[in-house]
């Protein structure tokens, strides 16, 4: 399908733009540039397109006369056709990226309207522009969508799927996905058939099977739309995973229903045998998809075991295996989405144990980038396709569709929750049910499925398309925009902003073992029992094969702890390199004990490369997840990394307070993020790092004998909050205690074996830890 991107002359395009963005235009100069650039890109494309014809015709004209006249050597030639396809693809992606940039430059707008709506609107505009030029706008074709645009989003979702909430709620999710979708499809199909018959006229020809097919297409909750909307409202984990998990797992149902009805839609009758076969097909599709994914996941894990010498291509394996899992599943009409999810979930714990930190970061960023661009493109194309597609508007049908979508969803959720709550410990309240029902958004998958219907067998295809587009618009615009105020209104629990702490980790594990033990005492093979068995099997056999080296034997608690420390170590390595440390602390701020310590101090805060590498090796253990966070889903603030944001300021401050020495035995803890950090025995240099020092040999807390386990993690991490905290706090004691900011520069020098206690990571920058400690395998 030729992709033609044209745009009118810049000034003509600017006018409508100006009307719309009048306010923004003036107040945000950056926006102007973004839009001008976008339009310029379009203009160039159109100009080039125009020129192609001239050049071609000119060349052929010249040759055709047969004069063989010697023409001047062409200094500059234009050959647009050569690069046409990739150029236009790049322009589209560029447009999508500019839109993303633009929306975030207008904070007011992105706060009110979810991005998906804005993107569809942009798509409509672009489609309209293309139409005005007389060209046919490109449509969201089946191949483009399912082979290029959808996989990155699903892989991103699957790879970062929070396993603990997912596995705890998998029963509920499956019930919603399978039974809920079936109910939706049949209810809608049957009722629509009734409506069609009742209304008569043009609609009489719509058969029952066609209606059922339509119901199957429209009933599935769409993962792309759900992700796009839900990640902006920061709802609590349970609801997020319920709706999102449902949107992922209902793919199998949709695939089966679609093929079933499509197959028999033109025949007109479905026998009981077919129904039975359909059920078998569903099991095959679902299980088959998962198995294909799992096989590829294991292969990827196994491959990653040997990549220690070619770190650079590690991310490539992850992507390739996942994509191949998707494609392989699609070959057999199995559920590609489930294959992709299974691959990501299976491969993750092992791959992460094997690959380097940089590769992990690369994978993370690439996935986010691709999925982000994909999502943007999908919505833009939806808008463009709306303008492009042949439409057959039919009031009763469309209105009925929208109503039935809502009604069937609500009824389905209420009914299913009533049944599910009998088996759940944490029951779903009415508010939860409302959000689950309201969050059932439809999206581009429905559109693409309808698009490939053969017009021969389904003469009312255009009507279906129109209705689906209307439903999509309705759910994305109306439901997407209103869900945030509704969440506020209903005071639905938001995502908990808890920091991860060592104590919680210890007790989570303790609880796991305790509950397994009690189940053993009861003689009841419950949830914990099987989980425990699986973990042990995993540890004994699977990890040995799939994880290289000694990392395969590290227990979870240790790896968690080391993971936290590694982060601090790395931070130190980065921060330490810019700090200049005087080796003798200024006496003004010293007290007896630290004097003693500092004289033995080292000069350099830097960790030697060898040690760093060593640490890295030891610390990359398999991460079974602890608590799930959903920051991985948040595309807008992918990094969500306070360090990177605050880096320049940190450096400024560091230079400012370089001379002040931190009291090694004074550790300050900022109790809450913004509170004053009291001076106390235990002080956190940053929110992440704690140094305790062995002041009091007699204290039961600190012992002289053991050397610190991690020597590396001695330096504090420079964090803005803590720095500012200490700087702002004006307690007299602080003057003598070294400012924590100086600790950034200080750090390592002061500590030596025996003196430095184990640094403790009370809290970690939420996104870092969460994304890295995100789990794995069912724990």
């Amino acid at each position, binding site marked *: 399908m030729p992709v033609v991107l044209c745009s009118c002359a810049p000034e003509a395009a600017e006018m409508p733009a100006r009307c719309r963005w009048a306010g923004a235009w003036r107040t945000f100069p950056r926006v102007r540039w973004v839009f001008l650039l976008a339009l310029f890109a379009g203009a160039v494309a159109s100009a080039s397109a125009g020129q192609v014809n001239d050049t071609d015709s000119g060349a052929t004209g010249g040759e055709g006369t047969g004069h063989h006249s010697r023409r001047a050597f062409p200094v500059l030639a234009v050959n647009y056709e050569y690069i046409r396809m990739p150029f236009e693809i790049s322009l589209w992606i560029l447009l999508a990226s500019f839109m993303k940039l633009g929306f975030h430059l207008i904070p007011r707008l992105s706060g009110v309207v979810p991005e998906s709506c804005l993107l569809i609107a942009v798509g409509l505009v672009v489609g309209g522009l293309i139409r005005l030029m007389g060209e046919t706008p490109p449509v969201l074709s089946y191949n483009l969508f399912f082979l290029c645009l959808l996989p990155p989003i699903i892989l991103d979702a699957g790879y970062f799927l929070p396993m603990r909430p997912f596995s705890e709620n998998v029963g509920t999710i499956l019930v919603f996905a399978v039974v809920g979708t079936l109910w939706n499809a049949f209810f809608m199909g049957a009722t629509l058939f009734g409506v069609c018959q009742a209304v008569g006229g043009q609609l009489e020809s719509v058969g029952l099977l066609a209606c059922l097919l339509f119901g199957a297409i429209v009933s599935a909750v769409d993962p792309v739309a759900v992700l796009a909307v839900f990640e902006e409202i920061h709802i609590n984990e349970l609801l997020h995973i319920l709706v999102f998990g449902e949107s992922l797992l209902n793919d199998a149902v949709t695939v089966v229903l679609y093929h079933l009805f499509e197959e028999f839609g033109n025949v007109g009758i479905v026998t009981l045998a077919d129904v039975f076969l359909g059920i078998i097909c569903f099991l095959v599709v679902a299980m088959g998809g998962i198995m294909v994914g799992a096989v590829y996941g294991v292969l990827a894990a196994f491959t990653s075991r040997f990549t220690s010498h070619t770190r650079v291509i590690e991310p490539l394996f992850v992507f390739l295996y996942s994509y191949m899992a998707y494609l392989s599943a699609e070959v057999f009409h199995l559920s590609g989405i489930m294959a992709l999810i299974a691959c990501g979930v299976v491969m993750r714990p092992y791959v992460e144990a094997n690959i380097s930190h940089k590769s992990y970061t690369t994978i993370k960023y690439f996935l986010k980038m691709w999925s982000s661009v994909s999502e943007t493109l999908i919505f833009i194309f939806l808008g463009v396709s709306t303008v492009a597609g042949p439409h057959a508007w039919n009031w009763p049908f469309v209105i009925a569709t929208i109503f039935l979508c809502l009604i069937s969803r609500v009824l389905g959720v209420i009914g299913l929750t009533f049944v599910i709550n009998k088996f759940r410990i944490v029951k779903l309240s009415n508010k939860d049910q409302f959000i689950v029902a309201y969050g059932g958004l439809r999206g581009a998958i429905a559109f693409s499925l309808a698009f490939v219907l053969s017009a021969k067998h389904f003469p009312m295809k255009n009507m279906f398309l129109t209705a689906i587009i209307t439903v999509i618009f309705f759910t994305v615009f109306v439901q997407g925009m209103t869900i945030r105020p509704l969440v506020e209104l209903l005071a639905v629990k938001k995502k908990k902003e808890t920091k991860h702490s060592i104590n919680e980790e210890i007790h989570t594990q303790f609880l796991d073992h305790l509950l397994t033990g009690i189940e053993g005492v009861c*003689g009841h093979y419950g949830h914990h029992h099987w989980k425990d068995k699986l973990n042990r099997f995993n540890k004994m056999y699977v990890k040995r094969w799939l994880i290289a080296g000694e990392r395969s034997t590290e227990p979870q608690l240790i790896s968690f702890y080391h993971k936290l420390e590694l982060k601090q170590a790395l931070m130190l390595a980065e921060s330490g390199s810019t700090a200049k440390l005087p080796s003798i602390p200024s006496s003004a701020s010293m007290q007896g004990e630290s004097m003693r310590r500092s004289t033995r101090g080292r000069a350099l805060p830097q960790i030697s490369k060898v040690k760093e590498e060593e640490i890295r090796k030891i610390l990359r253990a398999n991460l079974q997840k602890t608590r799930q966070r959903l920051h991985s889903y948040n595309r807008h603030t992918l990094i969500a990394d306070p360090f990177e944001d605050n880096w320049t300021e940190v450096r400024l401050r560091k230079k400012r307070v370089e001379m002040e020495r931190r009291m090694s035995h004074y550790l300050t803890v900022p109790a809450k993020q913004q509170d004053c950090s009291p001076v106390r025995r235990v002080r956190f240099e940053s929110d992440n790092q704690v140094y*305790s020092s062995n002041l009091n040999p007699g204290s039961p807390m600190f012992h002289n004998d053991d050397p610190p386990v991690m020597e590396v993690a001695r330096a504090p991490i420079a964090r803005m909050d803590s720095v500012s905290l200490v700087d702002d706090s004006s307690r007299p004691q602080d003057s003598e205690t070294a400012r924590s900011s100086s600790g950034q520069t200080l750090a390592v020098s002061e500590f030596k074996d025996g003196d430095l206690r*184990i640094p403790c990571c009370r809290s970690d920058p939420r996104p870092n830890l969460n994304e890295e400690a995100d789990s794995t395998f069912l724990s």
Partner: protein
Amino acid sequence: MGAFHSNPAEQTYRDLAEKTGFSVEQIWILHNRFKQLSHDEEMLRRDDFKAIPDLACNPIRSQIIEAFFDQRNFQTNSDGTAHEIGFEEFLTVMSYFRPPSLNMTQEEKEDLRRAKLRFLFNMHDTDNDGTITLEEYRHVVEELLSRSGAIGQETAKGITDAAMLEVASTSVGHMGPDDVYEGITFEHFLKILKGIEIESRMHIRFLNMDTTVLCK
């Protein structure tokens, strides 16, 4: 209920049901299990617990067994450990693992949470002095890591120290340079575990269902 249960037994069951909150069916099932474990004797001993094969590979096995014999968990305001326990005590300890019922008020939920956390606290605080000292906590961590061999020892110390520091930092206010953090009191314990929803996590599904389940 089978016909072989005589009336007095049913009455005791009802009393127990009132006391612990289980349903009569659940008590009956648990009683069967109790008799199975104790080989039809009246009292259960430590050896009977140790004979349970499922517990064999549990790293915190000894602590679980101790919890059953810890008189603080019997809700009788007594201390110390018992040598053997009867069915009532067994049931009382099991009742700590009941999930919250849907129609609980906020207060009741809070009480349930405190009770469960108290149970956990008692598991850690073996010398019954009201605080979890560094040694006791270290023991806990070592048990958790006990399967990992040599790495466990040193890192356990590190982890324990780090954890204690964390507790100190979150619970205690100003600490002078020479203050010593004695140990985790129950109040501090409550605070640091605020993030975990104990009342819904610390439960066994079995105890929630009214249907009979396989008894091994």
